[in-house]
């Protein structure tokens, strides 16, 4: 396992996320859901699967396709309300980010069952959060996956906050992984700030799924250090002390201590990589600015593969 590669992916995610918040503050994109602190979960998961495995994302994993080659500016275009952000899921093995909570989890099940039916051995990983865990579709998907023995890993980023709702108000269990037993699947909770722990747990679940052992639930325990999104003000509902405590545990600095301690990295190399990643994202921001605005035809296209003719309701109004 290439720990340096894992670390570089985390640094890339951090640079993407911080640049996106900056772009929002400068008015270059609209509201943006930050994932600051959740880089270990996302990067480790991408490394734990094969390129042919598909990832089913919520909005807080909006940068995961970037780890698989989507240009950052195209990912950010989504947050400036630009359909140029739309991509071909099969090109990156990523379903487009799901805005409703948990409704993409059944898609992961269907995709996994569908691939198996066609003789494939691919695995689907579905990301969701503690808030989404309360939605009916999450329950239905986990039950369906278990009944079908579908090769799916349900990966819950439990950052303990759904906008202003704390985990204690979201669920009456200490750990969401406890619910796995109710679906007849293995469940485990790991430290979501520890990339190696996440990697181990997801890799084990993926391996089990691939060899026909059915779905698993992995809960990555962490804390939403940032706001829900750039439009959110956490000071309305939680104290800064708790957040400050968790900020000290954030995954990248911790991982770097380990890598430097093991002699894999020097402090200078750490700084240089952050500088490099930040510069790359700054350049991507410039490319975003120079992307042409979308046209009306891009709004009306692709509603249907076979549009009716004539279709008066799909025509732009004359002015």
């Amino acid at each position, binding site marked *: 396992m290439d720990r340096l590669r894992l670390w570089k992916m985390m640094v890339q995610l951090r640079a993407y996320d911080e640049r996106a918040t900056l772009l929002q503050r400068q008015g270059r994109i609209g509201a943006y859901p930050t994932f600051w602190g959740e880089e270990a979960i996302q990067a480790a998961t991408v490394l734990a699967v094969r390129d042919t495995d598909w990832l089913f994302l919520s909005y807080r994993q909006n940068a995961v396709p970037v780890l698989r080659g989507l240009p950052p500016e195209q990912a950010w275009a989504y947050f400036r309300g630009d359909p140029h952000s739309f991509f071909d899921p099969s090109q990156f093995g990523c379903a487009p980010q799901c805005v409703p909570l948990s409704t993409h989890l*059944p898609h*992961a*099940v*269907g995709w996994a069952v*569908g*691939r198996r039916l066609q003789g494939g051995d691919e695995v689907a990983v579905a990301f969701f959060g503690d808030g989404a865990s309360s939605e009916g579709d999450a329950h239905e*998907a986990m039950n*369906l996956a278990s009944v079908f023995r579908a090769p799916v890993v349900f990966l819950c980023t439990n950052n303990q906050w759904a906008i202003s709702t704390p985990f204690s108000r979201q669920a009456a269990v200490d750990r969401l992984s406890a619910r796995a037993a109710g679906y007849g699947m293995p469940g485990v909770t790991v430290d979501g700030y520890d990339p190696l722990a996440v990697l181990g747990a997801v890799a084990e679940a993926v391996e089990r799924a691939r060899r026909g052992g059915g779905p698993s639930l992995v809960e990555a325990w962490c804390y939403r250090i940032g706001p829900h999104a750039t439009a959110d003000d956490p000071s309305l509902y939680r104290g800064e002390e708790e957040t400050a405590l968790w900020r000290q545990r954030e995954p990248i600095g911790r991982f770097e201590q380990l890598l430097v301690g093991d002699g894999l990295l020097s402090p200078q190399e750490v700084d240089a990589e952050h500088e490099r990643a930040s510069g790359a994202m700054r350049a991507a921001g410039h490319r975003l600015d120079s992307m042409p605005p979308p046209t009306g035809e891009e709004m009306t296209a692709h509603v249907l*593969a076979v549009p009716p003719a004539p279709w008066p309701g799909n025509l732009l109004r004359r002015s």
Partner: protein
Amino acid sequence: MCSPCHRRHGREICSGVRDSRPMTTSSARLDDADTVTLVQAVDAALEAELAADPRVVLLGEDIGRMGGVFRATAGLEARFGETRVIDTPACEAGFVGVAVGMCLAGLRPVVELQFDSFSYPAFEQIVCHLARYSWRTAGTAGMPAVLRVPYGGGTHAPELHSDSPEALFCHVPGLVVVTPSSPSDAYSMLRWAIRHPDPVIFMEPKRLYRSIRGTLLGDTDPEGLLRARVIRPGTGVTIISYGPSVPTCLEAADVLGEQGVSAEILDLRALWPLDEEAILASVRRTRRCVVVHEAARSCGIGAEVAAIVAQHAMFSLDGPVIRVAGLDVPFPMFMLEDLYLPNAGQIVVAVEEALR
């Protein structure tokens, strides 16, 4: 008198009891292809497409060994196996979502939503995902899924088993909504729907499942299946309808014929997109228009048809466009459903109003 429910309803099936007639479970049932019921036509279309395309899979509650509550999938699990005719847990949102994922994996799922109202739990999946996927992936990830929805009243069914939610689906951009009114259309249109690259809501008039018989022609004109069809030509008034109300309109046309009024019956077949050309051609010819459906009147298909006629054929009209529709009430308890459902007499009265 119907012995199970002790009422006169003139329907072949009374859902007050189980349909006790023997169910055929193999394709041998189609030996007598001249006289198949609508539900047999559905079964035959599914069988034909399962055989023709390994990407076609069926999903739904009780569709496997049992063959579905209406037996629309009778014999299919036995022939194609439980990996292609898939019994699901009772979770409509979940298995419509599974169908979305199957489309992403390159399959062509056909989902049975057991009854009209059972589509409501899946509404978010339909609106937020099924209808939007092509658009939000710039056309790269189409959704060639079919949702089969047995719908409508007149079968003495329990509460929330008789709804007509077609207009809800028509209001969602990204869906195609069709409904047959005969066994031959059911067969051809369902085979077309399964091959169509966009998501199709296939509304099956459950009242007609066993009350009418027809032949399986295997219509080969795919474009034609989104076209409305004049099923009875006439000159004095156009009666526009679809699905379960079509036989009622034909009944009304017989009565009108005896009164010397020549009624043209236009079966829309596709509710979205509407065949504006056919609607306008007929109305311009007869100069009168009545729209009939059993779904609630307000904001229904009738309103859309009336708007099309008002915009494009205003000066061809010699009378007001009249709607004969279900009432703006929750579908009633079945002792009152005959008061709710449009009948031939009411259509005749509406035609008289349109002719005044």
